[in-house]
């Protein structure tokens, strides 16, 4: 049905034209879900945009043909191409929060789209819209259709988006990361919906995603892309199960498995400069260990634990009515848990579960309403009552989620890294500080000359290494990692996870590892806590929880997360 041949897209820039994708060949049949998978920068979204004719300016198609049935899409004029959009090809975007016009009711948007392509009365269009919403799983559609987008929840909104893409019976739908912004439970419903639409209505889908689990779950065929080129293409089971190409194999091995624990990821690409600077990392390693003149083994005894008792955090709601006081939003409802010294504790939950609130409360950004925190044997003062000079500010360090915002882009790496050294008074001599910072960079697998550069000169993974180095230069005993890899590609994720594991065992750090990703937590954590709407659903040893989940919620989470068949890769 859709045949893309030798597609090449270029973008003119001030360095001359850059090629975004080159020689892409893709074939999609009616009723087929064709997965397009790759890491960031692979050019997978560009393929989708080129097919529907919505390349970001100033990008242009340099070569190749795109045929939809007998229609040559490249030969169409501007108006013909626009008339074809919605009618024969449609698209689903990533974020349902932003892809609906906030000022128009769902009905207006649906009816408008139908009338744009079909000759029928507004009433007929409305009837069709209501039927469609029912089919897609929106209950009481005749009523709900009159609502504005902000009156729907995230998952329901993505259904409305799908209804909009579907309302004119297109042959092909391009779904660009359709579930990335959604929680696991909603994701699985949306994926089921897409699968059933392909089966029942014989719509072809191009499913663009970075998530190999999603592909494994619903795609019939898959094309793996890297740096604008097709690496491998074919039946999903064949490509992912018995990959021919080295890159695909490496990619598959970087995906954390959920059904068993592995010691270490075999890293596909070495992005850092590992190996070249092992010797220079010694200084930083010595420095981290010398605190009390202990050897590596004894260092573990210094490990410090954290226990949290009946921690309760409430936010006052935004006031909407003159007469009613807003109800408090309960972010954490009297939760208690205990992180053992020298262990990694996983904290798992969906968005809004309160897991980041836990991190912010421990670091003192949020003042809890009640509850106590103990760091080792000392009470950890909460929120504003923690003085700026309190020792815990050094002992507890944090690695953040977004490496693009966690490093001050106007400061050089050198000054970012030496800041904890002078701020905590750990090293008086400026020259020594520079030396230590350079050595620490080597320890986390970076070239020490990074010290004179700015953050924007590094990739996401490299920045996350720098962020880890900054945390270590405070000589922490307790590390909080808040979704440290969720902004990174899988191969980079594997590297960072390896790095964290190594550092943890070498220096006896205690880590609180926060993540929404169950398979990552299984690989990292000794113990874990499952959080939902501010309440702990289940806690225990990680292996026990995965093998014998007790709480209904945990079972549901485990069953809904896309997994790959055991015999693959």
């Amino acid at each position, binding site marked *: 049905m859709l045949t893309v041949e030798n597609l090449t897209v270029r973008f003119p820039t001030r360095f001359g034209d850059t090629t975004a994708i080159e020689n892409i060949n893709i074939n999609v049949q009616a009723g087929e879900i064709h997965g397009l998978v790759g890491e960031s920068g692979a050019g997978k979204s560009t393929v989708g945009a080129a097919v529907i004719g919505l390349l970001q300016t100033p990008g242009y198609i340099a070569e190749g043909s795109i045929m939809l049935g007998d229609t040559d899409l490249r030969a169409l004029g501007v108006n013909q191409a626009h008339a074809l959009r919605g009618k024969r090809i449609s698209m689903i975007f990533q974020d349902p929060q932003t892809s609906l016009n906030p000022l128009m009711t769902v009905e207006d948007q649906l009816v408008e789209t139908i009338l744009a392509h079909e000759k029928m009365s507004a009433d007929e269009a409305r009837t069709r819209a209501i039927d469609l919403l029912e089919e897609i799983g929106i209950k009481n559609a005749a009523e709900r259709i009159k609502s504005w987008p902000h009156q729907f929840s995230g998952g329901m909104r993505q259904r409305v988006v799908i209804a909009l893409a579907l309302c004119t019976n297109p042959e092909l739908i391009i779904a660009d990361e359709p579930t990335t912004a959604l929680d696991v439970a909603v994701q699985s419903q949306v994926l089921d919906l897409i699968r059933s639409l392909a089966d029942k209505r014989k719509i072809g889908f191009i499913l663009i995603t970075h998530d190999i689990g999603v592909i494994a779950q619903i795609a019939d065929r898959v094309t793996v892309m890297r740096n604008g080129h097709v690496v491998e293409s074919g039946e999903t089971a064949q490509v992912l199960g018995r990959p021919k190409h080295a890159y695909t194999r490496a990619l598959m091995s970087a995906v954390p498995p959920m059904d068993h624990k592995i010691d270490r990821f075999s890293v596909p690409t070495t992005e850092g400069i590992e190996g070249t600077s092992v010797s220079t990392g010694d200084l930083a390693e010595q420095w981290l260990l010398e605190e009390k003149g202990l050897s590596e083994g004894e260092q573990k005894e210094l490990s410090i634990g954290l226990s949290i008792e009946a921690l309760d955090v409430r936010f006052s709601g935004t006031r909407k009515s003159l007469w009613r006081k807003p109800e408090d939003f309960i972010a954490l409802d009297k939760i208690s848990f205990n992180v053992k010294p020298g262990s990694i504790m996983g904290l798992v939950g969906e968005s809004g579960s309160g897991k980041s609130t836990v991190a912010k409360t421990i670091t003192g*950004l949020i003042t809890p309403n009640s509850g106590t925190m103990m760091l080792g044997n000392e009470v950890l003062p909460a929120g504003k009552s923690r003085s700026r000079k309190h020792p815990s*500010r050094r002992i*507890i360090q944090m690695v*953040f*989620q*977004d490496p693009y915002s*966690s*490093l001050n882009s106007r400061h050089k790496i050198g000054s970012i890294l030496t800041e*904890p050294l002078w701020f905590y008074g750990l090293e008086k001599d400026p020259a020594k500080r520079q030396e230590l910072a350079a050595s620490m960079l080597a320890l986390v697998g970076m070239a020490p000359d990074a010290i004179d550069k700015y953050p924007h000169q590094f990739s996401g993974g490299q920045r996350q290494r720098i962020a880890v180095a900054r945390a270590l230069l405070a000589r922490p005993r307790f590390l909080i990692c808040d979704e440290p890899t969720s902004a990174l590609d899988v191969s980079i994720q594997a590297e960072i996870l390896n790095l964290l594991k190594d550092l943890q065992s070498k220096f006896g750090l205690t880590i609180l590892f926060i993540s929404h990703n169950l398979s990552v937590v299984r690989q990292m954590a000794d113990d874990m806590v499952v959080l939902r709407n501010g309440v702990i659903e289940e806690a225990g040893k990680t292996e026990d929880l995965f093998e014998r989940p007790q709480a209904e919620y945990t079972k549901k989470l485990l069953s809904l997360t896309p997994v790959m068949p055991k015999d693959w890769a």
Partner: protein
Amino acid sequence: MKEFIKRSEGLWLFTRSPAVMIAAVIAILIFIGAAFAPWIASVNPYDLGSFSLMDGLLPPIWQEGGISQFMLGTDDQGRDMISSILYGARLSLLIGLSAMAIATVLGVGLGLAAGFYGGRFDAIIMRIADIQLALPAILTALLIDGIARGILPPEVQQDLRVVVLTLAIALSLWVNFARTARASTFVEMNKEYVQAAIIMGQGPIRIMFIHILPNILGPLLVIMTVDLASAILLEATLSFLGIGLAADSPSLGTLIRIGMQFMLSGEWWILWIPTLFLVALVVSINTLGDFMRDVFNPGLR
């Protein structure tokens, strides 16, 4: 060189937009001319002894009767127009730049603090900004000027004209900076590098000025440019209304007001040459401001 230019997006775009380059050249020339007016100008228009009524009302050189000593002609007092304009631009720029500097320091300081502390402090600053907004720039400047007339003894008034005018303009411009700085600070506050600094226990001054400020300079730079243009216009307007500077120390606005008297008689140059000069200056600054906005906000290209 070429490689160096390509590396910076701003520089690269600059070399590709002739209008912006011309504007930059004009602005720089005027700045230099104004800064070195005492050395460049042939006469000092403030010094009554340096020019003579005999030379009064001479037209520019390309018009009949013009002489090469006064390329752009003279006014009714016999002052060389070029010299008057250079000295006028000097005063206009001095007032504009100082007003902008004061407004920047005041506005950015308050805006940063409001964004950083949030809550009640922020609410108070923003309510004050609301009041300031309800009393627009010209009104504020006029009002301060009026108050100064009421409070200050007449003999001091003349000496303090420039100071009062500068303060009046500065006070009417700070809200722009405060609102921009606050909005940008709010965005930065949610970024993790600021949270990291707070968690470390760094002090508010260090976080605001060492961490946040360098990251919000872009939009502030745009406002500084645009507000420099506003300040120059505001000064001209106030002087034109006869409330700004007196005729013996003419700024560009005063020159235009004086020139108005000659609109209907034949001496067009006394009105239109200073006007053209003022507009050229402000257009150049605004062009540069627009260019910077485009660089910092690529969506508008």
